[in-house]
């Protein structure tokens, strides 16, 4: 068990590609941290530097207080689970899990005890004699986790462990991983490109983009208080609407004027925050779930009504997504399936302005 500290970590691949551009991160003991971001943003590189599989170009990584920059993977006391499982195909499940302990010259009984314990946690006791080839994707994933658990390392590292599974199994294994973490309580760093996975698993989410950290925080904080346009757009599904707008002075209050002349009032308590941008072009951000049908007895403060004409209507069962385009910008709303919505028919909607965001188009930061 240990905390992990990344201090100004830089990774430059041969040929000058900077995959990671100076990352600072403190991970507490027992914490479950998820690195999330689009493909190619440097998540794996970061994880592999922590594992010792990539050399660190600059900066310092500490595990349990010790600088590990120059310690080879086998001496870092970490365990890693790979996307394609990386099970040794010629070994039985038991031998796969025992291999690391065997190389470390653990006594036979101790190995057996640990493997059986891990098998119990993961519920793979009946698979111990099988070869990986004879396992399903989910079972392989469990074995790969078992291989990590038996070593009882300081840190678990996961690199997109669920990406090779089908959607249903992915949800199931997600729960499984969370359960395992609650049982063994080892510091965990988990890499994924799937923000839902990140939100559901993490104690803290680290959003990365282009080799830098955009924001770190608990899932709810990222959802409600994104710091940048990137985080606002990346977290949440369907993604937040970004509509080019003008912040207009309407007497005492501020108004957001959307393309097509739609005018929405900014809540009073935000006037001070936005004052400096009055009269300027901004990006207006609103999540689809905050743009809904007009409900009777809706007591949310700061509701504003507007009317849009949907062009595409997607019934999803528990909700309906409607899409329209405001001068080329897509706008989506999540409405109750009971509301009759049809393409081409004007639809009255309620915007929860208490949940709005404004983004400075110059800096892409949330105001």
């Amino acid at each position, binding site marked *: 068990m240990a905390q992990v500290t990344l201090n100004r970590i830089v990774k*430059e691949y041969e040929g000058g590609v900077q995959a990671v551009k100076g990352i600072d991160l403190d991970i507490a003991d027992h914490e479950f941290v998820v690195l999330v971001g689009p493909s190619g943003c440097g998540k794996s590189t970061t994880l592999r530097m922590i594992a010792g599989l990539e050399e660190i*170009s600059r900066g310092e990584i500490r595990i349990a207080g010790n600088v590990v920059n120059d310690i080879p993977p086998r001496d870092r006391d970490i365990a890693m689970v790979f996307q394609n499982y990386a099970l040794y195909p010629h070994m039985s499940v038991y031998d796969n899990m025992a291999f690391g302990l065997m190389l470390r010259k653990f006594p036979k009984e101790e190995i057996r005890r640990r493997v059986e314990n891990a098998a119990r946690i993961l519920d793979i006791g009946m698979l111990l004699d099988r070869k990986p080839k004879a396992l399903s994707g989910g079972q392989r994933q469990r074995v790969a986790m078992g291989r990590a658990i038996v070593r009882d390392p300081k840190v678990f590292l996961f690199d997109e462990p669920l990406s090779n599974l089908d959607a249903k199994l992915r949800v199931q294994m997600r729960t499984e991983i969370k359960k395992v973490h609650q049982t063994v309580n080892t510091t965990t760093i988990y890499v994924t490109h799937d923000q839902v996975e990140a939100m559901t698993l993490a104690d803290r989410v680290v959003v990365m983009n282009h080799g830098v950290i955009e924001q770190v925080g608990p899932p709810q904080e990222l959802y409600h208080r994104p710091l940048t346009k990137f985080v606002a757009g990346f977290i949440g599904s369907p993604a937040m609407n970004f509509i080019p707008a003008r912040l207009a002075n309407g007497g005492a209050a501020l108004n957001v004027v959307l393309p097509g002349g739609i005018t929405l009032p900014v809540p009073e308590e935000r006037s001070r925050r936005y004052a400096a941008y009055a009269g300027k072009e901004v990006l207006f951000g609103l999540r689809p779930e905050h743009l809904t049908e007009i409900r009777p007895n809706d007591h949310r403060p700061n509701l504003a009504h507007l009317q849009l004409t949907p062009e595409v209507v997607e019934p999803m069962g528990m909700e309906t997504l409607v899409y329209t385009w405001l001068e080329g910008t897509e706008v989506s709303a999540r409405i109750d399936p009971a509301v009759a919505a049809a393409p081409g028919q004007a639809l009255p909607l309620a915007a929860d302005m208490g949940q709005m965001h404004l983004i400075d188009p110059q800096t892409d930061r949330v105001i």
Partner: protein
Amino acid sequence: MALDATTVTAGAASGAPARPGLTLQRFARRRSTIAFIMALPLIAVIGGLVAWPAGYAIYLSTLNRRMTASIGLENFAILLESETFRMVIWQSCIFAFSAVVLKALLGFWLAHMLHHIPTKGQRIWRGMLLLPWVVPPALSTLGWWWMFDPSYSSLNWILNAIGAPSVPWLGEPWWARTSVIIVNVWAGTPFFMIMYLAALKSVPDQLYEAAAIDGATGWQGLRYVTLPMMRNIISITVLFSLIVTFANYDIVRVLTNGGPRDLTHVFASYAFQVGVLSGNIPRGAAVSLFMFPILAVVAFFVLRGVNQRNREMA
């Protein structure tokens, strides 16, 4: 070790750490040292038994017969002026070309036929048809030699049985050349067949189905689906075979040993004759070296093909 140092410097040049003398770096350095040591026996084989002899051959070819003095390119000049050697060049080219074309066509045909019968039966047929490739060629050629025997030829017996006249298989130059080609084709066709079969099996059935739905006849399917998909493997197999056939020795040595009247020599057998049997090592080396330009051209095309395919697959 020298190589090793270079790697590390290269790493440092590309913006690696300013931190000196670290274990992970040492770990990487040790890794490439170990890697180099592991490859050392291979380097020794390639360097000592291929590259050096090849260079040595060039040196040898410039010496006089007693190997006491350098005579420049004289050996090559003498060879080029010799009637016999000019014929050896001809012979080798005709032999290699016609044998490879025949092997390629027959191999393709057989692979195709094999591909078309039910999968269950393919194994046994493949097993039988590959046999000529498995038997060491020097030994199977002995069997052919006996079948070509002037007085007891079992092939002539068959010809006579169907009313055809006997053939002087190894007695006349023209027939002797044909015989060498026949044996080479017999021994080499299975290799083509097996390569093509592997390629045919790698063409997904859906492609043929799509082509059939698009209205392609069987022939058009072959022309527009099979051949393009197999182009790489065909060219690589042909090039490999060209080298091996061009440099062939066993069959000529056992079947005709260059005769009658030195008229069926190819490069290899002539080099052997001149270099080892007649003891003119420099001249023999020069004869072998004549193979080099042709091999180099072929190797160039093979390499290009391989690289291209690697790029396509990457």
